């Protein structure tokens, strides 16, 4: 057991580094699309160090104090509950703890924590942002659930390892090709899940300065920042396991998650922003209709 914990720690650190790196790459790509030079790809590391070593910090109350920990915990939990490499007892981490349903609900843990912390800060914008986030969540979860339930019924399992196992044996066994419509619905939901443009109304830097973490500073912010990075990686791995057939070694995992990452980056940089209700309506129409094609196919079978 102890070595598992040790590896879990290493995976967490690795996930953090990978997440920060992806963030940096994203900034770089955005800059290049703008025709700028952009920051170095390690800019996020520098930002994190700076935030960590700020010399003062303020707290608004208990919940404000605890929220970054919830956030970090939610991120780490998701990363560790999802098996990264198929067949590896070490890199499947703590996936014995629960199946896909557990992961789905544990994902909310961090978000809820952050929302509460934000609300505790007493800043009206911080409180506004979570309501937008939760509304948008109700939007993107519908197509996501369609694809998850469809896959679970199709493969007769909700265990993530089981789902990965069902996709082994060649590229055309991937759910992306087996159930393309479910996968499209799921991937559109992924855009919402990452709160990337066009679904970025939660953070909305122009209207409500930075969304939930308006009042967060220094160490708190660094925790949230790293939690978010780890959470992002966890979600990439989850989507990889669901749609891209998982990975049999680390390199494959990197390649596949990077591919997912690229989808988001390129979509993000070419779209303006939806309002909340527009986003919700979007999620409840196109991806749902697309997803239902496969869903009904599975239902009839």
């Amino acid at each position, binding site marked *: 057991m102890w070595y598992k914990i040790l590896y879990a720690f290493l995976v967490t650190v690795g996930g953090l580094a990978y997440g920060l790196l992806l963030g940096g790459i994203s900034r770089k790509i955005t800059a290049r699309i703008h025709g700028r030079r952009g920051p170095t790809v390690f800019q996020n590391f520098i930002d994190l*160090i700076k935030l960590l070593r*700020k010399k003062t910090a303020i707290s608004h109350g208990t919940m404000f104090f605890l929220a970054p920990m919830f956030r970090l915990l939610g991120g780490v939990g998701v990363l560790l509950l999802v098996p990264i490499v198929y067949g590896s007892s070490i890199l499947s981490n703590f996936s014995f703890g629960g199946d896909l349903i557990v992961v789905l609900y544990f994902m909310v843990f961090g978000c809820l924590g952050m929302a509460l912390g934000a609300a505790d800060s007493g800043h009206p914008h911080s409180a506004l942002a979570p309501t937008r986030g939760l509304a948008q969540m109700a939007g993107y979860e519908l197509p996501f659930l369609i694809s998850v339930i469809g896959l679970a019924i199709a493969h007769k399992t909700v265990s993530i390892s089981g789902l990965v196992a069902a996709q082994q044996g060649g590229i055309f066994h991937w759910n992306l090709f087996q159930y393309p419509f479910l996968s499209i619905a799921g991937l559109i939901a992924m855009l919402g899940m990452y709160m990337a443009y066009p679904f970025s109304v939660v953070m909305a830097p122009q209207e409500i300065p930075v969304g939930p973490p308006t009042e967060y500073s220094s160490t708190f912010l660094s925790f949230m920042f790293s939690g978010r990075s780890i959470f992002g990686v966890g979600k990439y791995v989850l989507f990889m396991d669901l749609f891209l057939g998982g990975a049999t070694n680390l390199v494959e995992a990197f390649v596949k998650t990077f591919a997912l990452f690229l989808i988001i980056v390129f979509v993000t940089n070419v779209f303006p922003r939806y309002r909340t209700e527009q986003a919700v309506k979007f999620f409840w129409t196109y991806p749902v209709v697309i997803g239902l094609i496969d869903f009904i196919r599975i239902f009839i079978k």
Partner: protein
Amino acid sequence: MKEKDYFLDDRPKKLSYSEVWEKFFNWARAQSLWVIAYGTGCGSIEIPPMVTSRFDAERFGVSTVGTPRQADVLIISGYLAVKTLKRVIRVYEQMQSPKYVVGLGACTVNGGMYYDSYNTVNLVDLYIPIDVYVAGCMPRPEAILAGFAQLMKKIKEGRADGWKQYIDNLDKYRKNQEKIIKNWKIPNYNW
């Protein structure tokens, strides 16, 4: 609970530093300057070109944020009225240390063309510590970037210690501030 304790009424503490890793952290600080998007005067129009494609301040790690809590740099962009000064003080005190102030334009240096105006603060550094002045009326984005380069250099060398001076000499600054702000309606200490 007290009848009213909307605001924390504690004096900021003097900060001590560990010198061991300080150089490394100063480097990190210098490479990651988050500017609060707060324009006090006409100079703030020069900041958008600075951070967008043309001059691209982000390549130096300079980016903008919307809240003083997360910001490292406050730019006093141009003339500063007494009314604005109050807000500037509050924003500045709400920022987390270490924090830096860039004075932009001639007005912040000595009042500039408004040197004899009844409502322009001539010497900003009497009220908040300024780490870098960028002269000009208005300075172009290149000049501002040069100012930032200067600021980075100061930070790396550990000389950008305006935030420290402010805490150390808070009484002096407060006295100056109260001299021109007749009716001190903001809290004693802004947190």
